[in-house]
């Protein structure tokens, strides 16, 4: 029940993504590679494929292309999800084939059901309630859905048990070497995944000095306390995106439909874009300047806020310096 964590004074948790995956992702683990459409850690998925992990249980609200690829590469024993589609496009064909052929186990929720499980895990609770939805076919098919009697009204509420992944992988925009991380844009279930998991790998577009993080503590959704490894991986999320850094590659998502429909095409794609590529930098370069240009963004800066500093302390500081 006790969770181990690194001390904050630790010299830093910076490592390569390859080393982090080697050390922290094991065969048979339950993995939560988080991010609702945004900040999906594709580079980490590819590294897991390259290292040949097996029998993973892949949990994500939206398996997205990252789990379609892991399933196609034979890394998964089971998938836990609430929406197994290519958003706005159609099916995740590798996942769908695996389910229809009975080649993979699956456990299914609604979005709120799955996120409730993660929230319970993050909160250290055995379960959390949600109001009943009237749609009983899924709760009947999945024995994790249960009921308790509300002791105040006597009515039934639905409950779901905590999900505590063995390892979560989270991509963020900027983090310090201890893993204190600023995220913005769509935050999805990132925070809950970070607190629910036993181990956390953090990948970041930028590694920044702690002073940047400390200049805006309300932006720190993930504290270094829960992070085991910090990896500097620019463009980690492609074809997903990092708000303010590069756009979502919608063309890629549209094009994936044809690739994943055809097992041979998919295998060739994995060969070319995962196995024949040593790391994310090589992958990004391989995408080429046209793709880079298509995904480039114009700036849109937030209005800063003032945290203030009490004058006496500020004077004191100045006197000392």
């Amino acid at each position: 029940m006790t969770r181990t964590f690194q001390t904050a004074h630790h010299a830093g948790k910076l490592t390569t993504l390859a080393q982090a995956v080697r050390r922290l992702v094991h065969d048979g683990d339950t993995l939560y590679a988080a991010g609702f459409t945004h900040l999906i850690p594709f580079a980490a998925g590819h590294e897991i494929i390259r290292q040949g992990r097996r029998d993973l249980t892949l949990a994500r609200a939206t398996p997205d292309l990252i789990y379609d690829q892991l399933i196609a590469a034979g890394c998964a024993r089971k998938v836990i999800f609430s929406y197994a589609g290519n958003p706005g496009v159609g099916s995740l064909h590798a996942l769908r084939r695996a389910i229809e052929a009975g080649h993979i186990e699956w456990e299914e929720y609604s979005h709120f059901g799955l996120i409730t499980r993660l929230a319970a895990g993050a909160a250290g609770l055995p379960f959390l309630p949600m109001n009943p939805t009237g749609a009983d076919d899924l709760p009947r098919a999945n024995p994790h859905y249960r009921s308790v009697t509300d002791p105040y009204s006597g009515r039934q509420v639905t409950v779901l048990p905590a999900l505590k992944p063995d390892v979560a992988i989270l991509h963020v925009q900027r983090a310090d070497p201890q893993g204190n991380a600023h995220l913005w844009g769509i935050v999805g279930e990132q925070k809950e995944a970070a607190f629910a998991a036993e181990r956390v790998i953090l990948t970041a577009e930028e590694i920044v000095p702690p002073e940047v993080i400390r200049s805006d503590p309300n932006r720190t959704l993930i504290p270094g306390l829960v992070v085991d490894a910090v990896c500097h991986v620019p463009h980690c999320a492609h074809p997903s995106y990092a708000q303010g850094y590069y756009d979502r590659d919608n063309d890629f998502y549209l094009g994936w439909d044809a690739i994943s429909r055809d097992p041979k095409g998919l295998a060739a794609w994995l060969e070319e874009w995962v196995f024949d590529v040593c790391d994310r930098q090589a992958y990004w370069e391989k995408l080429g300047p046209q793709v880079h240009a298509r995904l480039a963004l114009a700036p849109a800066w937030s209005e800063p806020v003032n945290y203030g500093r009490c004058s006496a302390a500020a004077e004191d500081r100045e006197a000392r310096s």
Partner: protein
Amino acid sequence: MSAPACTPAELMVVNAARLLREGDVVLVGVGLPNLACNLARRLHAPGLVMVYEAGVIGAQPERLPLSIGDPCLAVGALSICSMYELFAHYLQRGLISVGFVGGAQIDRYGNLNATVIGDYRRPKVRLPGSGGSMEIAAWADRVYMMAPHRRRRFPARCDFITSAGFLDGRSSRRARRLRGGGPAAVVTDLALLEPDAQGELTLVALHPGVTIEQVQAQTGWPLQVAEDLRTTQPPTREELETLRALDPQGVYLG
């Protein structure tokens, strides 16, 4: 002067947009519902608030989002919260006035199937699954659906109920004490269906040129027809021009 020609998708989107009201807080899906909301915002409901299940409140997308988590939804939004907060604080708490849900089957009582065709454990066709539609259908004040009117999409009973319409009729939904009002309308490319006093989807309006028989032929149960059966107003030039500007490449409008 005849009405301008339009595609079936355009016909559905224009009619869905008309159902949206000024001030509605709408949980938007991608594709056609997104277009309907943006159309309504530009015409009769400028104060409509678009909410996305990814946790975005008051989005003002500069382009058509492919997914409900597109970066253009975050830029310039009023607020962004976590997915847990979106479902708990907005939907379960009761702040969402309209939800759109979609799937492969809609049945007589407005129940929806987005999960499987065939047996759940040995599916003939595995569909993407609920996403947020189980909760949206339960807790939004009003629920709208859009679907091409085909017999296989409108069976008497769904193979699997992903999200609740009126279940076996209004009284069965009422017994479940769900906060939302359930399906308010289904917009198809042939007609508008609305639940009657028993919660059965009933033909209330035909699109111009469509007959009752055509609709019945594409519906998997004996369709009740409202006494005051209407014909929908054809899409206006303004509606179509505004709509087409939202999807200039015709990704969704065909």
